[in-house]
């Protein structure tokens, strides 16, 4: 059995829409993710990228289908899947260091233990502090450890949020448009930063973004989610599907010049056409699902799960 940390089988999600009807957001998503992959999910606005991420996180359950982690259905967010949001990842009442230490404390202490048994906790806390400082050093924030989040710039805040999630050493790190609110320069620096982190320990990362260039540059596998397609009989699409699932293999460490190569631009053009162009409706059988883990569509068998 291959080492698939995440398996999604025929997952659909519907929300109540206007006029009391249900609106299908995701339709029959099949996805398998191997340990150590850096998966980026990209797609047009409102295609359900974040919904898919929330299904994996466990803060939402699918209407149909299954979302499994290591073969066990995901029911609630837990410590095995860390998350970095675009905003609100840090607790503004804690300093950066305390934010990073928070997970360790929550995991090891029971509710009011620091109040009841301070002598015992102080020793542990020293250990947590050391561990937190290691991660802060890794993200280059050690000298800002005693600042509050409101005293940091947007990029620094996201680096702190990444340290806060990584200190728990989760099996998977989920990121929901983490750099969406940053300016262009900071954003590129953060992309390089995240790649550097990934190069060090090949943490499994699932990264949602609406920025196509970012998705192609940063990932080892690009998944395009879109509702701009048509069923094979020509009827209109119902909910977003994975319309493209391809490996990308830029070198590591990855210079940002990669973005100017011909292959990079060709991939960008094809994704823009197949995923982001509302007038170009691909048939399901024509989806480019060339990644080794992708489920492919067979006209006779339906979705084939290898």
């Amino acid at each position: 059995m291959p080492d698939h940390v995440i398996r999604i089988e025929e997952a659909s999600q519907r929300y109540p829409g206007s006029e009391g009807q249900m609106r299908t957001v995701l339709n029959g998503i099949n996805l398998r993710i191997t340990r150590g992959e850096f998966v980026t999910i990209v797609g047009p606005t409102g295609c359900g990228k974040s919904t898919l991420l929330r299904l994996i996180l466990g803060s939402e359950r699918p209407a149909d289908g299954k979302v499994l982690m290591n073969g066990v259905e995901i029911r609630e967010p837990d410590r095995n899947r860390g998350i970095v949001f675009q905003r609100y990842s840090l607790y503004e009442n804690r300093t950066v260091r305390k934010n990073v230490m928070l997970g360790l404390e929550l995991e090891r202490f029971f509710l009011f233990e620091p109040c009841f048994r301070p002598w015992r906790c102080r020793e542990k806390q020293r250990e947590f502090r050391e561990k937190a400082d290691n991660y802060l050093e890794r993200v280059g924030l050690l000298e800002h450890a005693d600042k509050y989040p409101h005293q940091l710039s947007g990029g620094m805040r996201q680096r702190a949020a990444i340290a806060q999630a990584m200190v728990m050493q989760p099996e998977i790190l989920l990121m929901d448009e983490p750099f969406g609110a940053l300016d262009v320069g900071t954003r590129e620096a953060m992309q390089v930063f995240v790649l550097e982190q990934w190069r060090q320990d090949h943490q499994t990362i699932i990264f949602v973004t609406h920025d196509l260039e970012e998705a192609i540059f940063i990932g080892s596998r690009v998944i395009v989610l879109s509702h701009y397609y048509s069923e094979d009989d020509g009827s209109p699409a119902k909910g977003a599907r994975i319309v493209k699932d391809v490996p990308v293999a830029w070198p590591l460490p990855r210079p940002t010049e990669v973005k100017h190569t011909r292959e990079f631009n060709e991939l960008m053009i094809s994704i823009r056409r197949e995923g982001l162009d509302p007038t170009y409706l691909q048939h399901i059988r024509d989806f480019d699902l060339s990644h080794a883990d992708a489920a492919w569509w067979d006209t006779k068998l339906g979705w084939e799960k290898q």
Partner: protein
Amino acid sequence: MRLFKVNAQPGKAASRILPLLPFIICIIAYMITAQIRHQENPKDKLVPTGKQLVDGFRRSAIEADRKGEHRLLVDTIASTRRFAIGVAFLFLGILIGLHMALLPYADLLFYRFILFFDKIPALAVLPILFIVFGLGEVSKIALIVMGVMPTIILDTYLRAKAIPREQVTKALTLDASHLEIIYRIVLPRIFPKVLDTIRLNLKAVFLFLIAGESLAATAGLGYRIFVVRRYVAMDIIIPYVLWISLLAFLADLGVRVWIKKWYPWVDK
């Protein structure tokens, strides 16, 4: 006219003097009135002179009365005690609101009820409180709690509801239990804000305190004012009013300093 410009920049002298000006005007106006009235009728009781006020304050604060008690001290202790117990109950209100906001079942069970309860004018049920709890301390504290606690509960509730959902989800990924989310994530985040609401409601606490004391008590700042009213003892009433205001001001200042010192991240 500079006075009517929204972007006026007052100078140093103006920023020093202008805030004091209304105080000075009030004091001078009072003193002139007292002067005039005492010239017409040296036995005037309605507007005692400054000297009489000081004398009245001295008699209440420093000299012992017939029972050998220092009245102001006794009254202040009695009122402060009721005030403190009332405020302690308000902190209980924080916990109630917090649970209502975060536990959906508690929300369903209590939210409507508290919303309705909040609308009952506490003073209107004061007779009921006196009948049920008697004329002792319990009814006076119950009045404070009935009058102010629903506000605190609802304020806490709304603030806890306003915490971004992401922060709760994030806490779950950091291995927080559901109780830890309530007490270690949400409570510390909203606490200074709720403290500020309590500060703003201290005025209401004093209001209910004095209302309760005025009807039935044997000591207390509000009690004293209403007792000496029978003798039109303005030389006692006015120092008492100023004393109560000073205490209220200090309580307010104390909470503001507390928030500023311990929660530097608030409002940033």
